[in-house]
């Protein structure tokens, strides 16, 4: 990837992170989980997928399903930056006058399907991928899961079925930020070695740094990895990426910052100077 494109994507991702921070107050949102996949979503929508505000009804578009629905601030931030969604609607966060809440829904243009209950969209994406293939299309069908989400048996069930049916136009992407709701994944339900697990389920797997746009481009432009297997891309990421004061912290999954903290965190995004956070940490589950 050339430097110019890389800088462009970095600038986009920075603005998406600003949106995430702005949404992390007055009720809050899943800040940590959103920041870890911001780069991934920016890369996919800005540079990889054939999906734009003007082709959302086109059956030949690429599909992205966000199965870890709680990182919707990263999705909506990306949508605002790329013209899918009016920025004013983000100001309606948690207002019952709009549909901007903690999980994605189809009242927001660009959202392919609602999510929130983990382990659902791998199978929904499988159905879409099967239909695209049945109709002879070569569009991509991507589903993004969390790593904690891999606790859910239905993720694996879907891959078994996708593998059995050789659904090679389906790609499962794991936002491997190493945390589930309250604890590190490896302290609760260890996932490693992760790539061999997917391989054992019949998938073709690559593992990359999910914050490195060049690596994202290299992996996604190589899809499908196999003619007969579903693809899996494990993106190693950092929970809270971009805000050192909350990075990789188990207690900063869901955040509801004060207005002052938001200002400090916006500065931190640009300067990387740690903010002194005084708001209480929240345990959601």
């Amino acid at each position: 990837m050339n430097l110019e494109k890389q800088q462009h994507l970095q600038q986009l991702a920075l603005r998406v992170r600003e949106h995430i921070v702005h949404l992390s107050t007055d009720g809050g949102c899943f800040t940590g989980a959103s920041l870890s996949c911001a780069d991934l979503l920016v890369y996919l929508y800005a540079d990889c997928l054939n999906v734009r505000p003007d082709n959302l009804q086109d059956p030949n578009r690429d599909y992205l399903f966000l199965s870890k629905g709680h990182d919707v601030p990263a999705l909506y931030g990306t949508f605002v930056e790329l013209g899918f969604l009016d920025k004013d609607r983000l100001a309606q966060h948690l207002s019952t006058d709009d549909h901007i809440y903690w999980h994605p829904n189809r009242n927001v243009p660009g959202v392919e399907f609602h999510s929130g209950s983990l382990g659902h969209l791998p199978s929904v994406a499988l159905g879409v991928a099967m239909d695209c293939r049945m109709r002879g299309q070569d569009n991509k069908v991507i589903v993004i899961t969390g790593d904690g989400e891999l606790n859910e048996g239905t993720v694996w069930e879907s891959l078994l079925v996708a593998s059995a049916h050789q659904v090679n136009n389906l790609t499962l992407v794991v936002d491997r930020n190493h945390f589930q709701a309250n604890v590190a994944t490896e302290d609760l339900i260890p996932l490693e070695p992760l790539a061999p697990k997917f391989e054992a389920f019949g998938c073709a797997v690559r593992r990359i740094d999910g914050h490195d746009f060049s690596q994202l481009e290299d992996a996604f432009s190589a899809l499908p990895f196999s003619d007969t297997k579903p693809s899996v891309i494990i993106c190693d990421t950092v929970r809270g990426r971009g805000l050192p004061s909350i990075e990789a912290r188990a207690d900063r999954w869901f955040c509801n910052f004060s207005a002052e903290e938001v200002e400090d965190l916006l500065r931190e995004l640009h300067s990387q100077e740690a903010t002194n956070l005084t708001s209480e940490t929240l345990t959601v589950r």
Partner: protein
Amino acid sequence: MTYEELIKETALADDRLVVMTAENRALIRNLPAVLGPRFIDTGITEQTLIGAAAGLALRGRVPVVHALATFLTLRAFEFIRTDVGIGKLPVKLSGFVPGFLSDGNGPTHQAIEDVSLMRGIPGMTVFAPADEADMLAMLPAIWASPVPAYVRVNTRPATYEHAPFEIGKAEIVAEGTDVTILTYGMLFEQTLVARELLQAQGKSVGLINLRSLKPVDETALLDVVRRGSLIVTVEDHFITGGLYSILAEVLLRNQLMARVLPLALEERWYRPGRLSAVLEHEGFTGQHIARRIAEALGETTENISAGPAVMENHFAE
């Protein structure tokens, strides 16, 4: 015509229709060869089956989805509620061996809360045909409707010639002044027998086939209530959430009272066995139903004769 022939005919005429199964092929064994990629067997994965059906429906397909009724409605409940229900997608659920039809399988296989669960989902429609002929008459309208649907599959041969089907309409078999039996599904056959036995005792017995449970025919129910006689709900379902509950809801909504005898499964699973033995043990043969109704009417039951033998189920699954 059989279920398989109907689905084949419908699918060949409408390429939106996709047949899916979680390896429940009892009624659709010959379809893979006919439908090719439009026959999708996901293996024993009810949740993935439903999620994938939702995905196919998002793309404009109408998936007709097969699994044992209990695994379909229970194992995959959240997927039905969350993917199909919230998505308002036209996924058509065919629940195999519901209610007493799982005869010898045991409680793990007894779908006797399926009506309750499915009708609790906003936008879901629920149907329980009385027999194969009733089902084949109902399915075209159910598959053609743009909303999700759950069907209690019933392939028992008909012992009655049914009226044409309309979604939301009950089939009024007979009107009666002493008692009216409300039922659905495979017990319709037994209530027909019960009605004959009671009529032979000089009773005037109404009978209604509530083949469309949601939407339910509220007008038909209110007509019965206004008649003022005993109402008997007969169902192979837990007493909670099925027809008895539906009737109670209609009564309350209309500020009405009625004398109702519920014949249902109260707080327990039924004793597994051959279908005839199950109906006998649980008190749901035509003769038992007639006896229980006669008792409620304060009548002597000695003269109620036995009805015809119950035909056994012909599925081992």
